[in-house]
């Protein structure tokens, strides 16, 4: 699964997602208010089943006065890894 495919999927299940540039793994941005429902669907849809939160970290961007939360999801059923900065 590459970034484009992932974006396509996340766009369809949850609107407002954009592709995360400059990442070595498939990654999308999800607005903070859509996060919970997006995560829930990513986990619960059987053909996605991102059931494992591999790691969770944050990147601080003091210049933009914001920080980014990073969720690394993995599906033990399908074996695909998804990185979701938000």
């Amino acid at each position, binding site marked *: 699964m590459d970034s484009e495919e992932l974006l396509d999927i996340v766009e*369809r*299940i949850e609107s407002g997602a954009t592709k995360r540039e400059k990442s070595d793994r498939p990654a999308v941005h999800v607005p903070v208010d859509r996060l919970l429902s997006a995560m*829930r*669907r990513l*986990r*619960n*849809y*059987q*053909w996605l089943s991102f059931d494992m939160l591999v790691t969770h970290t944050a990147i601080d961007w003091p210049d933009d006065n914001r920080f980014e939360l990073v969720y690394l999801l993995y599906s033990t059923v399908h074996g695909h890894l998804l990185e979701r900065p938000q």
Partner: protein
Amino acid sequence: MIASASYTVIFYLLAALAVLLSLAVVNAWKLLRAAIALMGVLSMSAGLYVMLDASFLAGVQVLVYVGGIVVLIVFAVMLTRSAELLQDNPAPLRKILGAIASLAFLAATVGVFRSSPFLLSAEKAPLRDNTTLIGEKLLDYGAGGYVLPFEIISLLLLIAIIGGIVVARKTEPQGQPFTTGGDEAGEAEFRPPFTQEEHEDELELVEK
């Protein structure tokens, strides 16, 4: 001569220790110390039994009272909040009643001592090895035998054991390992049943 003198000395030593330790039992502020003093008292009385050539009785005294009963008392003390039990100051009425009861007991004891004739004869207990005799007496069903009381006591003990188990048994159902209520509830919230809309959503996506 020396033998009987040392015998007397040892007797008074044991007796004095027993009295002192008994006082310690009633006066100790900590229950556990009282229990330890009680252990001392019982050991001293075991010593007195030995002096009377009743060594089997002495052994049983130590085995049952020190090894069993005092250990049980200590267990009970350790498992309860003994410190708080001693904090309450008894009411005056209780103090008076206690004093009356102990005085009455003293009077009764003195009365018994005065009325009973003590056989302080020169001939001591004739048996050195009285263990065999005890065994024979206990299991003899003849005229001088005690097999019936012995068996009745066994039955009584059995009843006491069963009663103890019934009293101490927990009646509420035991929880299964790992079913912590809070955790399961959180999970149920985290994984909601699919709504109809979501289900159609998924079907649609799968078709594409």
